[in-house]
């Protein structure tokens, strides 16, 4: 089984999601660095797609902005060494829909990912039944394919969990990505059940957008993915991020916001932080 470096982590992780090329490739690198400084344990780097079935309006808009800047799957993968050069050390997961992978070529994509130091791949529209060839390529190249389980997974959960690599991504509730005011009351139970089946860390995402939600979830999972809330902040800071005179200040504001969201997580694992 392929493993991620993070599998050794024993405290809840902060996993931010940002879209490659939103608002520009260079700024994506700086945002990643800001997130690492804010305590991110891993980064999900989203590849913009024209027809994202699992995404809500905030990430759709970010993808549209990045596509206008000609971002592609290959260019997103090639951002990883750029991030490394700037000092990003945390594992980087490429989050992409399946069609761009097919067009780049499955083998070519994994070779490229390996060459550029990608730590994992997540494909939200590739369910377990269709994932065989990709899983094999992942094993061959040592890049885990992250599996997702949803509240509707039921009988499938055991099968998915038993094949999970890297970590297991739990979709918090029915629906696409986006900020939610409330998470379902059944979520903690769902996470507990997933943990019972899983041999890898269990991470929860979709809709998590406040520090209160993070606080509520931290005892039931090994990590929290925050996407839309951060992407929305990037959207708000878009102009300032792209104005040289305001960029540093905007990055600092972004970082403060990220820190505030995951404060409960970081307090919980301050001992982990100091040992890092």
């Amino acid at each position, binding site marked *: 089984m392929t493993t991620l470096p993070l599998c050794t982590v024993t405290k809840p992780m902060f996993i931010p999601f940002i879209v490659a090329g939103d608002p520009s490739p260079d700024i994506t690198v700086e945002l990643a660095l800001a997130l690492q400084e804010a305590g991110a344990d891993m980064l999900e780097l989203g590849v913009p*797609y*024209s*027809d*994202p*079935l*699992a*995404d*809500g309006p905030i990430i*759709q808009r970010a993808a549209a902005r990045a*596509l206008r800047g000609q971002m*592609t*799957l*290959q260019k997103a993968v090639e951002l990883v060494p750029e991030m490394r050069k700037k000092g990003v050390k945390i594992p980087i997961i490429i989050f992409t*829909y*399946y*069609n*761009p*992978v*097919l*067009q*780049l070529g499955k083998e070519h994509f994994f070779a490229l990912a390996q060459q550029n130091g990608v730590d994992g791949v997540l494909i*939200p*529209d*590739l*369910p377990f*039944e*269709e994932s065989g060839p990709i899983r094999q390529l992942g094993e061959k190249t040592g890049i885990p394919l992250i599996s*997702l*389980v*949803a*509240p*509707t*997974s*039921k009988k*499938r959960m055991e099968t*998915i969990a038993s094949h999970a690599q890297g970590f297991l991504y739990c*979709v918090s509730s*029915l*629906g*696409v990505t986006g900020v939610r005011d409330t998470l379902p009351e059944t979520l903690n139970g769902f996470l507990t059940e997933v943990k019972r089946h899983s041999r890898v860390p269990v991470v929860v995402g979709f809709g998590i957008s406040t520090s209160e939600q993070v606080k509520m979830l931290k005892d039931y999972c090994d990590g929290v993915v925050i996407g839309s809330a951060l992407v929305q902040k990037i959207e708000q800071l878009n102009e300032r991020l792209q104005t040289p005179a305001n960029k540093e200040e905007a990055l600092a504001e972004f970082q403060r916001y990220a820190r505030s969201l995951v404060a409960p997580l970081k307090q919980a694992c301050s001992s982990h932080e100091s040992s890092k």
Partner: protein
Amino acid sequence: MYNVPNENGRFGDFGGKFVPETLMLPLEEIEEELTKALADETFKAEYIRILQQYSGRPTPLTFAPNLTKLLNGAKIYLKREDLNHTGAHKINNAIGQALLAKRMGKKKIIAETGAGQHGVAAATVAAHFGMECIVFMGEEDIKRQELNVFRMKLLGAEVVPVYSGNRTLKDATNEAIRYWVQHCDDHFYMIGSVVGPHPYPKMVREFQRVIGDEAKRQFLEREGKLPNVIVACVGGGSNAIGMFYPFLEDDVQLVGVEAAGKGVDTPYHAATITKGTKGVIHGSLTYLLQDEYGQIIEPYSISAGLDYPGVGPEHAYLASIGRVRYESVTDEEAIAAFQLLSREEGIIPAIESAHALAKAVELAKTMDDSQTVLVCLSGRGDKDVQTMMRYVHVKEDDDVAAMYRN
């Protein structure tokens, strides 16, 4: 023997289920219930009863005498899906899926629509069965198909405008799927064509094959043999699969007609099989219009019902094995055929169907009078009259037949 899809929903390489994990359970539930329903005589009898008593089936097989005489070639027959309740073949599928939804205890329907025909069909059956109905429709299509939007609202459906992408069918479908992900516990997603993840392509085929089954029976009665050529238009391709499926193992030429828009050598077309490449769209692997990076390209056609960047996976398969020939017809050719049928036979076809007709006319001219061409007239043109008004200046002395005389 023709026996696709397999248990994984594959038509050869095509088809499958490429959806977010959340939708895997609802798809399995639909598949399970569909299998039971198709083996259940009571379900089938109820489906046929509603088709007969509510929709007006069987639809007639109409010989086109004036067109045949004008072309001086093969005899042309029309399968009159335009005479269905709500004006198109779409109602066959909507009735079938609504019955299945009812069987599954779902009371809320989600649908997407381009030209509005599937939206109207979904809204109609929802009213008939006392269900709620939400129809997603691209803002551009809402403008193009004002009349159908009004009909859906009259029928009690909520029409949700979609502002993403080109604001047409592709975007409405994305939005419908995204909405379904959120509401899959109590909503049934009624897809309007033989597209989407398994089991939709198979399910829609099963509910549309009534077109071909009836046509085969009627044709044999009338001509004592099968047609030489069958022509149907292909956007997603539900009328075409419905028509072709019962003939796949017969010695009949099958021709699917895609929208060439302003020409397949321009960027403005919807000729997916002719010009597309393999990829994943709306949950299934098929041919689609995309750029080299896998971003989906917005299609174009004068017909809101045909401008879809993908195509049903079974059509992709039939093209790959060479069983069906897929060709394309431009806006201009479709407009001419639209006028021709109106003038010659007193039948105003949907612009979608006019694409099939244009190809049928072209083929018939090269054949002799012992041969026959059957065209699936998938819908009527009432909804397209406003669109046509923008393209055509009808003059009383226009001789639209002149260009077709042999």
